[in-house]
């Protein structure tokens, strides 16, 4: 009888252990997100400190507008807004499968302070029509030059983000991409941006 009690206690402790190790999960079915792009492995999880709270840049509530104005949910016709779970799915399937890229549209000084793992920094300014090298970037994103015209048939699926809902950098990048001919159907916008990302305690990386 005593043995049974000890066994039960032992089993209960075993069952509780993984929970204690991962109290803050991404979702009920997913503790963390792991994927590989080329030779690089990425792991995204959440901060396990249940008392953690934001301080600094992303804790601010009242940035002056202008310049920091609330952005629309739909930045352009055909561009879908997505959240964290869709973004993780995109990283695990499209980015890992080299059919998609996660684009950080912020200027390099922001990117240098921390970004979402596996993101590529393509500042909105680099996509401006006034950048004489804009085509080089579009081609790196998978567009093909046929004569004078860029063909976006095989261009990468993109998820674009910036600092958050008060930041227009992703909106500008999307506007510039669409003006350059990039199909809206190949673009999605992680509207919550880095602010929502860090607010959930998700992993960030430094370049």
């Amino acid at each position, binding site marked *: 009888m005593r043995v049974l009690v000890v066994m039960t206690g032992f089993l209960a402790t075993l069952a509780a252990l993984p929970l204690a190790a991962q109290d803050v999960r991404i979702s009920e079915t997913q503790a963390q997100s792991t994927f590989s*792009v*080329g*030779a690089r492995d990425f792991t995204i999880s959440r901060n396990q400190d249940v008392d953690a709270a934001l301080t600094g840049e992303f804790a601010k509530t009242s940035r002056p*507008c*202008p*310049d*920091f*104005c609330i952005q629309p949910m739909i*930045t*352009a*016709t055909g561009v879908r807004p997505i959240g964290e779970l869709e973004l993780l799915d995109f990283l695990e399937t499209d*980015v890992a499968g*080299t059919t998609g*890229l996660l684009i950080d549209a912020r*200027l*390099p000084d922001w990117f240098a302070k921390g970004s979402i793992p*596996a993101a*590529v*920094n*393509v*500042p909105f*300014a*680099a996509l*401006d*029509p*006034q*950048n*004489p*090298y804009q*085509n*080089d*970037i579009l*081609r*790196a*994103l998978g567009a093909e030059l046929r004569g*004078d015209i860029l063909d976006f048939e095989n261009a990468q699926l993109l998820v674009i983000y910036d600092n958050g809902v008060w*930041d*227009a*950098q992703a*909106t*500008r990048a*999307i*506007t510039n991409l*669409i*003006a*350059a*001919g990039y199909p*809206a159907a190949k673009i999605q916008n992680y509207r919550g941006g880095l602010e929502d990302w860090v607010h959930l305690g998700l992993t960030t990386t430094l370049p």
Partner: protein
Amino acid sequence: MIRSVVGLFIFAVLLCGYIVLRPSDNGRPAAVETTEVTRAQTDSILGPVPDAIAPIEVVAAVQAPVRNTAPGLALTTDRSQMDETAANVLAGLGLNVERNQTAGDSDEMLEMTASVLSGIGAITGQTFNASGKPPAAESALELLVVQALKEGQNDAYINTLVNEAAKAGEISVPDILVTSEGDVDTAVLLNSIITQAQIAAGGAEPAVPNVTSGEGVEVRVVQRATEAEQYRFYTVNKGDSLGSIAVKFYGNVNKFGRIFEANRQILSSPNAIQVGQRLSIPNV
């Protein structure tokens, strides 16, 4: 007696409360709404993030090259920059012109582009190189103008030549050269070529004229708390192009972008200007 005194007191307290707590909007200067007209200014692409983004449907329609589908207009237009077009014409004439005032910006852009390309390469495992110089293939328009200038043709002849070729769909023209009548503003192109040749020869850049009167020009002064702000508007006349309006107000065709950005609400593309449109002219 006491009741009425207490009643009056409560009324006074409520009134004070209302005055203190009423929406602060009432206290804003009346000029605030007027400033909305000239908000979006994105002439410097590295400048502060703009607060107003034009409706996206509009931007999506500005792909290059575009066949204009507006009734009565059938010109093929593109978004080529005037200074580039002028430089190519001059190069075609055997004059070597540095790609002028944007040289500094271009270096910065090249650097940013190179960093973007290496970032994308690090993820995709491919290698990309920036082309090293901006694409500079001579367009059909440039070849046509070079040929005519070599032959020593006059401006009127070149204007007719360019317009006929454009209407026949043989050449694509920069969209800022399309006038309110749907013609090609060759004068602005030729003017731009001369200006650039002068700068290349060591001349000064054209001064910014201070246009405050003339046909279609309207100036409004709004007195704000600390300063008086001047807003200019221009009503499009027959034969105007976005390029010619930029020359009129800024002395430089390449500054057309400021006018275009400030008027995105009514201009679907730079070639869509129409007689009678009232354009806001941002201050330099």
